[in-house]
């Protein structure tokens, strides 16, 4: 009896302890590697979105408990995060030990030599977990390498910005009949922009008729970098205008200098974007990426293109979303020829967003920060991490049962990410990303506010972009 009792106790302890440290394969390795840094305080900053919050709320406290390294992880708005990071990097003050490096800003950071090369860390067996398995990361990690293949950031989030829609509305027989009667073809996920427009118009009018708050379109049209990003990352590529309209060989945007920013196609796409705002909720000109997610979760939108890092809670969390189980994803509609270009690798249809954690050149506790970064990206935790925040950075995560379950609940998002992610691309290599974005923002928001026509805005924008490039010496 006693032996049984002890056995049960032992099993119980093992069970409880393994549950305490959720998903750690080799706690002793971590404790040993962190010994020299016990009691150190590392400080990091990131954007206040689901993936970073997951790290702050779960990964950081567990890391602290296990290793004794204290983690002060700041999550704040995108604007503040960048301001603080760039100021720290520029001044070399060493306030932060690890920072958020978004996929589009890496080029600027690399050009300034602001980040620490991680290769020496990776080859140091004392501080790199044997299970780390760098090869397991998806191709997304290539965005964080320099020309020689040195790694400067480990991805912690990667997701697409693509089309999502309300399955309940699209499958409703009454709605389907009404749509067919109005437009002459069956209501289905749009593959062309004309179809998208029809559907948007239909649902907004439907909402008005029925007196419910329903709209067929949503956008992030606030006077904020987000509206410039929406055009550059999402709308223009799907209409066939790539790389922000800039010719990457001579760094010029005007059509007469080899760029595509004020081309007819770009103008057409921009005019479409501004006109479409009438089918979005009236507050659309105050929306950034967070409001678009929130309004989708509130059930007011029938279709739209959003950053799918929010897909997780929209599709599965009833405490935050009113449309659980009613959402599915699809590829965005494209202009003729764009899909073929993308499949052939000559273009792309949308944005592959994401970010990594990098270590500033001025960081004071680089090794401790490196341990924490590995901790967040360890294989065992990725499934859980994906459940908390819809992102996948490791190939093995696709096979995790939690992710497979999530895939079904989101209408196949992870399958799409795995199989068709190659059709999407990250931002082009533009080291002058920040000042460039300011210029785009200015002209795009002027047209969105109605101060100037979209066509004129683009002509002016192209001219100013060229001027800026020249000014900066390119």
């Amino acid at each position, binding site marked *: 009896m006693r032996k049984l009792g002890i056995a049960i106790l032992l099993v119980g302890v093992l069970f409880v302890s393994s549950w305490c440290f959720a998903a750690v394969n080799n706690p002793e390795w971590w404790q040993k590697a962190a010994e020299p840094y016990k009691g150190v305080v590392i400080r990091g900053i990131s954007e206040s979105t689901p993936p970073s919050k997951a790290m702050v709320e779960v990964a950081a406290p567990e890391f602290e408990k296990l290793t004794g390294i204290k983690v002060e992880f700041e999550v704040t708005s995108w*604007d503040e995060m960048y301001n603080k990071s760039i*100021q720290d990097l*520029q001044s070399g003050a060493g*306030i932060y030990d690890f920072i958020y490096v978004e996929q589009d800003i890496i080029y600027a950071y690399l050009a300034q030599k602001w980040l620490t090369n991680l290769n020496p860390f990776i080859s140091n067996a004392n501080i790199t977990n044997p299970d780390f398995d760098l090869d397991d990361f998806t191709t997304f990690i290539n965005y964080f390498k320099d020309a020689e293949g040195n790694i400067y950031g480990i991805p912690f989030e990667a997701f697409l910005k693509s089309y999502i829609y309300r399955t309940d509305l699209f499958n409703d027989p009454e709605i389907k009949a009404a749509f067919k009667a109005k437009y002459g073809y069956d209501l289905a996920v749009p593959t062309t922009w004309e179809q998208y427009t029809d559907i948007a118009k239909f649902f907004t009018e439907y909402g008005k008729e029925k007196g419910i708050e329903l709209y067929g379109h949503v956008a992030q049209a606030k006077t904020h970098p*987000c509206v410039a990003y929406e055009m550059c990352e999402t709308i223009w590529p799907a209409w066939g205008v790539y790389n922000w309209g800039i010719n990457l060989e001579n760094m010029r945007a005007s059509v007469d200098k080899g760029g595509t920013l004020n081309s007819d196609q770009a103008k057409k796409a921009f005019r479409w974007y501004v006109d479409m705002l009438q089918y979005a909720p009236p507050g659309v000109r105050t929306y*950034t990426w*967070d409001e678009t997610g929130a309004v989708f979760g509130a059930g007011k939108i029938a279709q739209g293109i959003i950053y799918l890092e929010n897909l997780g809670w929209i599709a599965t969390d009833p405490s935050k979303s009113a449309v659980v189980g009613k959402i599915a994803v699809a590829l965005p509609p494209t202009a003729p020829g764009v899909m073929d270009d993308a499949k052939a690798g000559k273009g792309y249809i949308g944005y592959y967003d994401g970010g990594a954690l990098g270590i500033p050149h001025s960081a004071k506790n680089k090794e401790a920060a490196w341990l924490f970064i590995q901790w967040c990206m360890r294989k065992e935790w990725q499934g859980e991490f994906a459940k908390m925040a819809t992102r996948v950075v490791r190939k093995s995560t696709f096979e995790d049962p939690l992710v497979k379950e999530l895939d079904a609940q989101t209408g196949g998002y992870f399958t799409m990410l795995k199989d068709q992610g190659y059709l999407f691309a990250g931002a082009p290599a533009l080291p002058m990303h920040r000042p460039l974005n300011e210029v785009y923002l200015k002209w795009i928001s002027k047209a969105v506010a109605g101060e100037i026509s979209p066509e004129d805005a683009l002509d002016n924008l192209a001219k100013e972009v060229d001027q800026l490039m020249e000014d900066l010496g390119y």
Partner: protein
Amino acid sequence: MSGGKKTWKLFLVYLVCILIAVATLFPIYWMFVISARSRLEVFLGPRLIQTSFYSPNYYRPFVQDVYGRYLANSLLIASGNTLLVVCLAVLATYAFSRFRVPGSNNLFFWTITNRMAPPAVFIVPFFLMFNRLGLRDTQFGLILLYCIFNLPFAIWLLKGMMDGIPKELDEAALIDGCSLWGLLFHVIVPLAKPGIMVTAILNWIFAWNEYLFAAILTSVRSRTITTGLAEFVTVIGTNWGEMAAVSVVCLVPAIVFIGIAQKHIIAGLTFGAVKD
């Protein structure tokens, strides 16, 4: 004027007073109301009365989050700067008042321009200089920096007071064998105390209220509460209740000091041009 006319005028006066008081106080009242509402309650609409009090709006930012630290920083910086400025100003104004220092008119003009120029014109040099000197994100850096606006102003305010203290007292004390420091500490300062208090209070309020430089020159350790307030309006959708709560706390010193030095605040803001 006849009795009827007078009461009519009195009525008008009270009416105007009440209107102005309501217009002035309503936004402040609204801030209090929002600070007492939870997120859900806030979005229920513009209801004017609030019966419940949602204390997490105050608790979370100050106890759980970093705003407590921001508050401490603000206190430290405002008090530190006031101490520094008052000490230096007393010495300098004594000198200006007792001895003829060349170019004091030009100095006065320079004072005014420092006070009147857009603060933004100073951010580039300070941003770069502070980085190089390692003063970035330190309370000490801000304490020094604020002198550029506050010290000339304090000198200007105190000079009038100093001039008002008769020189004969100096001479009397010196004849009695007092040293310069003794003279300052035991004679001048006690006499100038009201003026010094006013200067100190005004200085403290200016330092406490400052936003731009605090936002640009601090990052984590030395963030002040005014900067913290601006941080609330984020892309994620603002937590209005908490922002209102922090705003209320920001307001507290102002209310306290108004009670003490109301008249002098006006005088100070007009460079003493208008005294009550």
